[in-house]
């Protein structure tokens, strides 16, 4: 039985792979960044998830106990300043690839009878994300897909969506409007986030919002969407004058 983590070379994917490996799971860490995979203690696979052959390459590791779709890219800045092909790339990796892989794994009967499909979404599903339109699009798509999938799966299998807020990762540093000490200190530690996620998956929860700060923001987005939108517009979008790809 294999547990597959995509986007495992760095950030949350790496923390999840390390935590699962430490628990004794047979982990397959997948990434397109070969260098980042080298230093992992588990099995690794160098793979571009948007490639046509990617679903078959993963299905070859059946039976799959759990697959966590953690690979993702973003692009922040004014929507019209981000090149069209970058918008398309975000959708291809963040949304098309996980859906294609899920459909193909089911068609190939590659999941264990109690297998878990987990998707790393974003807190933006609860709050909106001015300054990252196509990223927000891809993550809302994943959240919706996970909900429908839960109904469609063979009995025993499980689908979950994870909604993390900003974490102390290269991803956040790359796309955030600033990386001052104060902003960086406010980001959640990836090891803690990974631990909460794995606990939630073990309990077979469908919606996992890791950490108190993310849970608070999610509630704010639900209770006061207008105010939350205004705060994010001011705090994120208005500071993003140059696109960050």
């Amino acid at each position: 039985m294999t547990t597959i983590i995509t986007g495992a070379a760095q950030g949350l994917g790496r923390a999840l792979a390390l935590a699962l490996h430490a628990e004794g799971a047979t982990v397959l860490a997948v990434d397109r960044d070969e260098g980042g995979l080298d230093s992992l203690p588990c099995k690794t696979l160098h793979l571009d998830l948007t490639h046509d052959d990617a679903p078959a390459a993963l299905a070859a590791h059946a039976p799959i106990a759990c697959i966590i779709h953690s690979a993702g890219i973003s692009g922040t800045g004014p929507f019209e300043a981000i090149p069209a092909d970058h918008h398309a790339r975000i959708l291809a990796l963040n949304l098309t690839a996980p859906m294609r892989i899920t459909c193909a794994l089911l068609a190939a009967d590659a999941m264990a009878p109690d297998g878990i499909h987990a998707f790393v979404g974003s807190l933006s599903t609860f709050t909106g994300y001015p300054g990252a339109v196509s990223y927000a699009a891809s993550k809302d798509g994943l959240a919706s897909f996970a909900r429908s999938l839960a109904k469609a799966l063979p009995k025993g299998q499980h689908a979950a969506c994870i909604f993390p807020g900003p974490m102390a990762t290269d991803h956040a540093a790359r796309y955030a409007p600033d990386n001052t000490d104060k902003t960086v200190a406010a980001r959640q530690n990836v090891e803690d986030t990974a631990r909460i996620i794995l606990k939630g998956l073990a309990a077979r929860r469908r919606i996992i919002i890791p950490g108190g700060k993310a849970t608070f923001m999610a509630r704010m987005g639900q209770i006061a969407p207008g105010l939350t939108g205004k705060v994010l517009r001011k705090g994120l979008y208005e500071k993003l004058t140059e696109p960050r790809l």
Partner: protein
Amino acid sequence: MPHVLITGASDGIGRALVNVYAEQGWAITATGRRPREALENPMTCPYVPCDLTEDMAPVLDALPPRLDLAILNAGLGKVGPPEAHSAEDIAQMIALNVTAPLLLAQKLMPRMEGGAMAFIGSTAARGAHRDFSVYAATKAALAGATRSLALEWQGRVQVLTLHPGPTATGMHDKAGLGNLAARRLFTAPDIVAETLAGAIARGKNRRLGPGYMLRHALRGARR
């Protein structure tokens, strides 16, 4: 005379929207994938046959330098459990339902300051129907984009998201939905188009939930 662009106008809700705006005296540019000869009823307004996932230039070239309203309605659905979706099905739905309207919006923006863009989503976007998993995800993605885009463009272009419910259009046959009895409850496209045009005129997002469908089904049955 205000000018509106309507995509996905060869059939269904898009076609009905053309009729609504024509009655209201708007100048219209309509576009759809079908060639002009394949349209069931001839259209009086300019119609540009165009596959938005391949090349948007024919539509952009046909538009006036200033546009008041764009209704990005073109969409594609496929019904079936996840394992029955091919890579091609998924790629097509993402391309037409998400990527194309976003990239078209990006191209239209410069000629639309002060105007409005209305994106047609679906009540299915919230997910949880086993046979619409990928379609629902693409509509949720579109709604996720427009929600954030509305915040970005506030004060410049009004961004609206309209979610029709089940409508009696050709989409369900193309999607592979069987001849269910429930389809008799689906709302007629001309009624849906009028409701959507009303929401656009008021500048409001709108979701046509099951209550809306049932109200109109009952009204139709009483007639």
